[in-house]
């Protein structure tokens, strides 16, 4: 079976086969056309790989920022944080890790303003001026638009962080924040219920997690209300510290 041999050979030595083919038919218009396709496909794949790389970077930076926010909350060192954020924001250009970015930005926004960041506010931040090695046309403005779907999914992720913030703040003896948070989370939950199934399909998956987070926060508020009067404040912190660890392990399993 001559044919079969040929097949096995070509699969084993694709590189060699390429050489062979090029030498066999250097003038063929089809081969010439395919050389163009080859370049075009390679460029496309390279671009895709770069995007994947950047989006991973964005994801990592966003996650780091969120953890930084959790750690630094006690010192209220926002200004410093904002500088960190601005630094990595420049990285965000045409990236797929945009949900994590929304998550980080909206988390920061909530901590500062106690409100939900709007889509316009996010997009307004994603306008960059290209100053260094500017093209002859002068300052070039680059914009990146977060799609509504990404925004929605980012906000869904935000709720998980808010839950952690809530439990953490109880542990720190902060009584007001949990109630504020539970109210805010409820609003977001209502918002998602309003969107329902019309959104992208990931939403329903995240909605489940959102319900869990909301449940945890509401439970915490309940305990705070019921037992808050019984337990002196300094002991309350202890009660919730143990509770927090309990919550965290639960989170780990889920």
């Amino acid at each position, binding site marked *: 079976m001559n*044919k079969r041999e040929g097949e096995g050979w070509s699969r084993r030595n694709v590189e060699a086969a390429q050489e062979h083919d090029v030498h066999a038919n250097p003038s063929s218009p*089809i081969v010439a*056309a395919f050389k163009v396709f080859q370049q075009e496909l390679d460029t496309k794949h390279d671009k895709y790989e770069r995007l994947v790389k950047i989006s991973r970077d964005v994801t990592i930076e966003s996650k780091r920022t969120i953890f930084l926010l959790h750690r630094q909350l006690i010192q209220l060192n926002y200004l410093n944080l904002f500088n960190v954020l601005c630094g990595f924001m420049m990285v965000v250009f045409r990236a797929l890790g945009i949900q994590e970015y929304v998550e980080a930005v909206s988390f920061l926004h909530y901590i500062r303003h106690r409100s939900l960041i709007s889509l316009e506010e996010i997009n307004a931040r994603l306008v960059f001026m290209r100053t260094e090695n500017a093209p002859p046309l002068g300052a070039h403005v680059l914009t990146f638009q977060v799609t*509504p*779907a990404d925004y*929605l999914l980012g906000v869904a992720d935000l709720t998980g962080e808010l839950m952690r913030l809530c439990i953490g703040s109880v542990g720190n003896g902060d009584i007001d924040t949990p109630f504020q948070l539970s109210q805010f989370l409820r609003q977001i939950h209502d*918002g998602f219920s309003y969107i329902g199934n019309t959104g992208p399909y990931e939403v329903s998956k995240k909605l489940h997690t959102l319900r869990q987070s909301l449940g945890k926060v509401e439970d915490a508020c309940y305990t705070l209300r019921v037992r808050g009067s019984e337990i002196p404040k300094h002991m309350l912190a202890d009660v919730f510290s143990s509770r927090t660890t309990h919550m965290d392990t639960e989170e780990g399993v889920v």
Partner: protein
Amino acid sequence: MSVTEMFSYIQGFLSADQDVREDIRKVVQNLEQTAREILTVLQSVHQPSGFKEKGQLCSLAGKHFTASVECTGGEESFEIESEFHEHWRFVLQRLAFLAAFAVYLESENLVTREEVAQILGIEVVREKGFHLDIEDFLAGVLIMASELSRLAVNSVTAGDYSRPLRISNFINELDSGFRLLNLKNDPLRKRYDGLKYDVKKIEEVVYDLSIRGLAKESESGGN
């Protein structure tokens, strides 16, 4: 802006998306219908009766689909394009195949991407509007390859012994062309993996012809 307001604002976008999706689905349905009609016309190539006039017919059919594609191109801006690409990827590949097949029947040459785009009334460059993706184009070419392997068999049945040889040359060149590409592990790669079966089928036809001396006969007579 309160949370509730924000969500109803987002909801507006989502339902707009939904509407666009619906519109695209309708256009794509039309296109699929047209593609099937063109395919039916082109299928008669496999009948024993000649195909020269069929080549003319298919360019007539081509006129038909130009109109439909144009309406897609006008409606969807290229910004949306990447987001909803999945919706029309399939039908676009079919149309690329039909265009490539029609051009091959007429000229026995490989269609260029520009030609396909022209026949379909769309663009090659993404920035200019509704465009033909290179991967969709190549997928269309690969569908054509399997159609040609069928044609090789059927043209022998019809008594045309020279065509399989020409098809064999063409497919072999196509195969070496595709081997130049660095394909990723994607749908196009899977399609390309099927090309070797087409090559094999045609080579068997050529083998059958050569061993019986029919190929020689046609070379002296046909070409």
